[in-house]
C-alpha cells in the first residue's frame, strides 16, 4: 500500500505539444494526469541532481538579461588590456620560442609516446 503524500496545486504554462503528448498518454494508459506530472517532475529532478556537475561540459549556455547586456557591452566596447593580459601573451610567446627541438625530434618523441604500453 503506497503512502499518500500531501498535495498542493501548481499551475504553469507549458508547450502545446507537451500538453498534447500528456493528453494522449493519459488517454492511452488511464493514469491520472496529476500523477503523471508529479512522477515526471520528481524523476527529472532526481536525474539531474545525480549528474556529477564537475564531469559535464555544457556547450550551450544561456545568460541572464544582465549577462547578455554585459556580453554585448564587452564585444562592442574597446578596453585597454591589463598589464597581466599583456604579460600573459608575452610569456606565451616565450613558451613557443623555448620549444626549440627540431620537428624531426618532435615527431620521433610523439611516435615513442604512441608506442607506449599504456595506450588505450
Amino acid at each position: 500500500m503506497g503512502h499518500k503524500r500531501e498535495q498542493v496545486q501548481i499551475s504553469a504554462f507549458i508547450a502545446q505539444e507537451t500538453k498534447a503528448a500528456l493528453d494522449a498518454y493519459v488517454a492511452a494508459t488511464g493514469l491520472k494526469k496529476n500523477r503523471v506530472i508529479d512522477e515526471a517532475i520528481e524523476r527529472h529532478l532526481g536525474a539531474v541532481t545525480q549528474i556529477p556537475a564537475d564531469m559535464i561540459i555544457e556547450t550551450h549556455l544561456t545568460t541572464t538579461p544582465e549577462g547578455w547586456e554585459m556580453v554585448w557591452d564587452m564585444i562592442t566596447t574597446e578596453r585597454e588590456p591589463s598589464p597581466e593580459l599583456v604579460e600573459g601573451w608575452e610569456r606565451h610567446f616565450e613558451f613557443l620560442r623555448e620549444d626549440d627541438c627540431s620537428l624531426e625530434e618532435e615527431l620521433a618523441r610523439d611516435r615513442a609516446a604512441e608506442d607506449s604500453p599504456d595506450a588505450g
Partner: protein
Amino acid sequence: MRARALRKADRRQEFDSGEPATDLFFREYAGQDQWRHYVGVTYCLFDSGRPIAFATLSAGSLDPGELPPEVRERLPRHAVPVLRLARLGVDRRHQGRGLGRELLYVASDIAVKMRVRAGCTGVLVDAKPDAVRFYERHGFRRLPITSRVAGAGARPVRLFADLQHLVRGAMTASEGLTATDSLALEFRRRARELSLTHEELRSVVDKLLD
C-alpha cells in the same frame, strides 16, 4: 614547451592536481569527451612525456534566453559562438610554474584561429571560486549564466573575455618581438599544423631562398 591535444597513449592515471574531481575528469572523462562524444579537446603540457597540466576546450554558444522588451529592442537576440575553457588542472608537483596561465593563453590563441576560420566572439571559462581573481586580472568578467546541470560538486563561476580584448593584449605583447621572431614563430606554427617533417620544412625553406 608546447601544448598539444591529448592522445590515447598519454599516461593520465598518475596525474594528481590535488582536486579529486579535476583528476577524475582528466583520467576518466576527458578521453570520452574527445574521442567518443566529440564535445571537447583536451590540450596538455608535458614533462618527460607525461601530462602535467591540461585544459579542456569546447566550441560552445551563448544565447540570451527570454529578454525583457526594453533589452530586446536594443540588443541582438541571436546566439553567439564562444570557445569554452571548460576544465583546467595542473599536477600539484608542477604548480606555481605558470602552467595554468600558459594554458589560458593556448586557449586564447586557439580562439583567435577559431574566429578567423569559423567565428568566435570570446573565451568563456568555468572557474573554481578561488581562481576568479586570476581570470579577472587577465581581462575576464563574471557572467551570470543559467545552468541546467544542478548535480553534485562545486558550481563553477563563469567568466567571459571578448576576443577583441584578448587580441589587443596579444598585439601589445607582440610589439616587443622582432620581425624575425614573429616570422619564425608563425612559420613554425604553420609547419606543425601541416605536420611537415623536418626535411619537408627544409625543402620549403630552400625553395623560398632560391
